[in-house]
């Protein structure tokens, strides 16, 4: 919290908060060590497998997505069930860049067109593919496209005072519509198969330990940066207006704040963060496909935040890591039963732990 907060009466929370802050720092440092441990000899007890590095990198991207959702939902009360769409759009922007980089190494050896365009009979690159051969442009698009979509949908909705579950339903329909649209082969995004078989990024071949470590650190940097940014925002008056909007939207209006502008700001920012997370996610997992737009994905991401504890930022990270780790573990250990465990967890947390795991820790700390 910022210094503007009045000094009196808040002493009780401080030790717990410091412990938490220390824990985050340690966790980030430990994460930063992972790729290094990957280089240890295979027989070392501390060696971390390729799999662990890759899968942790993926979780980091999910954590950024969770952070973005928490900023909008936990602080401004905007529950978007379409954040997966922003994530996927960012991913598609990066995917388009990676496809352009394949160049003549594709199966059909076409110098410009990606394979799927060749066998679907495209003669030339569609206009919206132009420019994606440049990395900065692709990164820019990974932010602009989700941001723009969030702006349009947000502006129309917030202006019409569509709130709460109605907004959730609208955003859910948005991601569903996008999923259907991206499944169409005629859209020029590879249909159901999406983009795969990437070769390189920034001149580095992708399927190497080094590239994976690089991507891992990029994701970690994005996570750290997003966390710092989000914490800063929620510490300013902007953050306090957002909380006010969450708790009593119309009261904020009578104070003279344009609720639409504030909601729009945070929603667009959140979408941009989600887009960046998606952009890093794609080279890490090696595929982007319209399945990422599936409404279930967005709901799951919101559930990570709920599990961790919303409105705390750290809870979002905790939720994203714990739920996904659990999912990775269970889909191998109990392939037939993991849905029960995960579904049961979602039910239990929402009913019995309204403040999530973080709430549990905090009450334990007191």
């Amino acid at each position: 919290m910022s210094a503007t907060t009045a000094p009196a009466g808040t002493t009780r929370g401080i030790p717990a908060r410091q412990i938490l802050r220390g824990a985050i720092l340690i966790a980030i440092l430990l994460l930063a060590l992972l790729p290094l441990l990957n280089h240890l000899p295979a027989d070392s007890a501390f060696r971390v497998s390729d799999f662990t590095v890759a899968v942790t990198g993926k979780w980091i991207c999910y954590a950024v997505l969770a952070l973005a959702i928490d900023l909008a939902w936990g602080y401004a009360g905007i529950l978007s069930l379409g954040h997966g769409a922003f994530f996927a759009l960012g991913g598609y922007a990066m995917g388009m860049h990676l496809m352009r980089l394949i160049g003549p190494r594709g199966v059909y050896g076409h110098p410009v067109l990606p394979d799927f365009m060749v066998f679907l009979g495209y003669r030339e690159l569609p206009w919206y593919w132009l420019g994606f051969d440049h990395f900065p442009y692709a990164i820019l698009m990974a932010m602009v496209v989700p941001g723009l979509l969030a702006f349009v949908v947000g502006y129309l909705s917030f202006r019409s005072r569509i709130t709460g579950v109605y907004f959730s339903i609208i955003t859910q329909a948005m991601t569903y519509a996008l999923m259907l649209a991206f499944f169409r082969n005629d859209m020029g995004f590879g249909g159901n198969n999406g983009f795969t078989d990437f070769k390189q990024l920034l001149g580095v071949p992708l399927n190497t330990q080094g590239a994976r470590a690089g991507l891992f650190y990029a994701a970690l940097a994005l996570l750290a940066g997003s966390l710092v940014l989000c914490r800063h925002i929620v510490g300013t008056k902007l953050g306090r207006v957002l909380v006010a909007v969450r708790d009593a939207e119309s009261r904020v209006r009578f104070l003279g704040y344009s609720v639409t502008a504030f909601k729009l700001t945070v929603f667009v920012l959140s979408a941009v963060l989600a887009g960046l997370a998606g952009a890093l996610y794609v080279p890490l997992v090696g595929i982007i496909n319209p399945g990422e737009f599936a409404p279930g994905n967005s709901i799951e991401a919101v559930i990570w935040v709920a599990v961790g504890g919303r409105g705390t930022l750290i809870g979002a990270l905790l939720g994203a890591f714990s739920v996904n780790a659990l999912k990775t573990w269970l889909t191998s250990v109990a392939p037939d039963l993991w849905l029960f465990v995960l579904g049961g967890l979602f039910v239990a947390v929402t009913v019995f732990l309204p403040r999530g795991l973080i709430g549990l820790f905090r009450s334990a700390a007191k």
Partner: protein
Amino acid sequence: MSKPGLYMDGVSVVFDGFRALNNLSLIVDPGELRAIIGPNGAGKTTMMDVITGKTRPTAGTVRFGDADLTRMDEARIANLGIGRKFQKPTVFDALTVFENLELALKAPRDPWSCLRWALGGEARKRIETVMEEIGLSARAGDPAAILSHGQRQWLEIGMLLMQDPDLLLVDEPVAGMTDQETEHTAALLRRIAGTRSVVVVEHDLEFVRALNSRVTVLHEGTLLSEGSIDTVQNDPRVIEVYLGR
């Protein structure tokens, strides 16, 4: 530059065939303190809603100075200098008393300015003064959620003061207050009224008497009677409405 006044002429609001306001006209001069009374369903709250932009009138003119309020949304109207205190005290539970007042403080209201906002010494002083006034200095760091009902009323009045409006709309300010607090509120409102217009909606006739102001009586969405409290109390139409036929 003179302070603006409120001007309502022929205002009607129709919900699904039900006339909440019916051809209501009302003028509040700059600096005036005005009490508005009326039985339940008389249209008091709807009138406030129309002035603050929450409800669009079906017909009629609402002006504040030169500004046409029927074309503006709540935030713009608030920024024109119209503040409102709700019947049910609405403060931001998750924020502290200090933060609640800080949000209300008159300052640029766009997101970017809020992001770059830093609390200056003068602003802090103003907040502290108001906290003093509303008797919440000791609770500055407590979240509003743990305040008592009366304290929440005070906090909301404090927020209204922070807004520094030219017109205050106050809806039942003394509900849940002790007699002493009620007196304190009346005095406060009388004092404020010197520099700005104040419209108070209240049921408590003792409190209205204590305000010592012009009184407007609403009934079924129209103006029934207007004048001093004594004039109004002796108006047979008012007596009929309040005591029934």
